[in-house]
């Protein structure tokens, strides 16, 4: 019997001894991303351009933040479904504060700072509640965060009554759409300040390097990637996701650690919400149909994390997010209707889960 099953299935032991296959298996998402970049550069008009890469990365910037927070939760063996709506809630709250302070005559700087700070602080509360329920009351993460999913959404709706929040200080838009450096053939280099151009030709030829929001996100990601990979806090996160019992025996304060992890996840969602205010120049609640939390989870899984916990990295998640973003953008630039894009994203996700399920020795070999 044993022999026949061996004949039927692929011999993973043997496969995983092959270095090339091991390398491909571990980095399939990255290889796929590179392959897509090459493919779309041939197929899509204007795909391979700095402007389009800016579009891709800006398009997935909120997803990138959400997925990074989700990475911590998934590594610890949990799941956080509330992030999409926490983002919407923070987006609405901080934009309302900015709008009202601005209307009350405070300077734009003070309005924006207060709005952003209070937004970020508000975002910690859902995380604490999630963590408390999961860690102390032993509510399954799926249920606890689903509850917060509804609460955050309801609060956001209540606050904005369905209207987008506008009338923000004009500087919000200028900051959210600023780049680190500009180069115009006519006016030369300039840093942070966009050159005044009137001719359409000149506007189209303006080269913009590194969007400011992306610079900030990179900064946050480096800090948290360091925390995850180089600190005791990170090691404990992996330990809890790997084997809770072992973690407890090793003397880790598991409940406290879990609360911290859900707060981190919620903080990332809050940061995404504040970022959204600056990006869109207004406060918007998250639409039901957006499914941010699902795409964030998908990106984490594509990036090599396991839904059963104990595995995953921030950089893997970054690749996952870029893969989803590039796939969407590339198919869009090719002019493919939206329906096919959903199918394509679904297929990629299935591939990721299949690889995680059936080739664990290949992908996660220590």
């Amino acid at each position, binding site marked *: 019997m044993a022999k026949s099953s061996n004949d039927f299935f692929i011999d993973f032991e043997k496969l995983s001894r092959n270095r090339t296959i091991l390398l491909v298996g571990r980095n399939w998402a990255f290889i796929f991303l590179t392959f897509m970049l090459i493919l779309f550069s041939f197929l899509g008009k204007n795909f391979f351009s700095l402007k389009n890469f800016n579009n891709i990365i800006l398009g997935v910037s909120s997803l990138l933040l959400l997925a990074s927070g989700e990475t911590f939760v998934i590594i610890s063996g949990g799941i956080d479904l509330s992030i999409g709506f926490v983002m919407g809630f923070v987006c609405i709250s901080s934009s309302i504060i900015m709008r009202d302070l601005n209307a009350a005559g405070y300077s734009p700087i003070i309005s924006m700072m207060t709005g952003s700070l209070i937004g970020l602080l508000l975002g910690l509360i859902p995380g604490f509640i999630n963590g408390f329920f999961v860690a102390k009351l032993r509510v399954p993460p799926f249920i606890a965060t689903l509850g917060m999913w509804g609460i955050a959404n309801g609060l956001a709706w209540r606050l904005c009554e369905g209207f987008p929040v506008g009338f923000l200080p004009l500087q919000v838009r200028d900051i959210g759409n600023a780049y680190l450096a500009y180069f115009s053939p006519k006016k030369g280099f300039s840093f942070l300040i966009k050159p005044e151009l009137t001719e359409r030709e000149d506007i189209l030829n303006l080269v913009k390097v590194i969007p400011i929001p992306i610079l900030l996100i990179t900064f946050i990601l480096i800090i948290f990637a360091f925390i995850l990979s180089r600190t005791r806090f990170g090691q404990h996160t992996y330990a809890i996701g790997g084997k809770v019992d072992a973690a407890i025996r090793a003397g880790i304060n598991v409940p406290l650690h879990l609360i911290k992890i859900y707060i981190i996840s919620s903080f990332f969602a809050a940061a995404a919400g504040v970022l959204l205010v600056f990006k869109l120049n207004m406060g918007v609640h998250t639409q039901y149909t957006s499914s941010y939390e699902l795409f964030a989870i998908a990106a984490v899984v594509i990036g090599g994390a396991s839904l059963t916990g104990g595995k995953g990295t921030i950089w893997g998640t970054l690749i996952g997010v870029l893969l989803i973003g590039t796939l969407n*953008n590339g198919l869009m630039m090719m002019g493919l209707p939206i329906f096919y894009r959903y199918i394509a994203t679904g297929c990629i996700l299935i591939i990721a889960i299949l690889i995680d399920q059936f080739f664990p020795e290949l992908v996660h070999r220590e």
Partner: protein
Amino acid sequence: MKKFIITLLLICLVLSFVSTICAAQLRFAFMPGIADPFYFTMEKGAKAKAEELGVELLIGEYPKAWGPEYQVPILKALVARGDIDLLFTAPTSTEALIPVLKEIHDSGIPVITVDTYLGDGDYSKPSNYNFPLSYIGTDNFLGGQVVAGQLALLLGGKGKVFLENTNPDTSSVMNRELGFRAGIEIFPDMELVGVEYCLDSQETAVAQVSAALLKNPDLGGVFGVNVFSAQGAYQAVVSAGLEGAVKIATWDATETLIEALKRGEVDLILAQMPAEMGALCVEWGVKYLNEGAELPKKVIPGFFIFTQENVNDPEAQKYIYK
């Protein structure tokens, strides 16, 4: 104990009679389609008219998402109280709401559909959905054509345009798209270079219009079919630095869009008349119930076009959704 229960029941019975007699005024119910500025404005228009005519107006809870699965349970709870004289509602499905509203109609509550309709919206011919008293709403196809014409006017009758839509499964926005396509076809020098669906997410709309701008560097105009797609579209144009060069036409005069028009970020807004639709429902409902008046089967209150020129006119202000 038995006596106590019987007495209690009797008291309840008497009280319910009293309340029916006291409530000689008419009681209308309004069931909106989704929580958004459009229906909020409709409610305000209906409320003002109801106060004026002495009608009590019950408002159904606003569904958080579009679709019968969200609307029907709330609608059923709303009419379950059984003392409603007339219902006006925006059915969220042309088919799925037919049996539900038919049942309400058969229980003796006359129904008016507002903004959206049952079947094909023509209640004057024999069908299984011709029971509502009237359809009061917008002709989305016509509106799409009007926007196409106005955008062509802005662009001098030539150039490339792009359409940012929301949900490919909703009749109202799809009719706007069809109308817009038909309207653009009238102009031989105009070309519709693409259509995208953002599913009501502003962030997605930004990404989609950004890609369209990159694909078509000479794009002349964008039509965003609702609040979310239009605001996403103008954000994409702004971040490309092309405000003014790319004309943006949009639908629904929310305060944020009006502000954008004043800042010069949006060039054209087609306003529906939700407040008027709501007021008409109440007014005609009263006429029907008190005077037995015959209602027209279809009423289109018309549009108002906001541009840079008229946005500050005093008489235009009433068309802004508030």
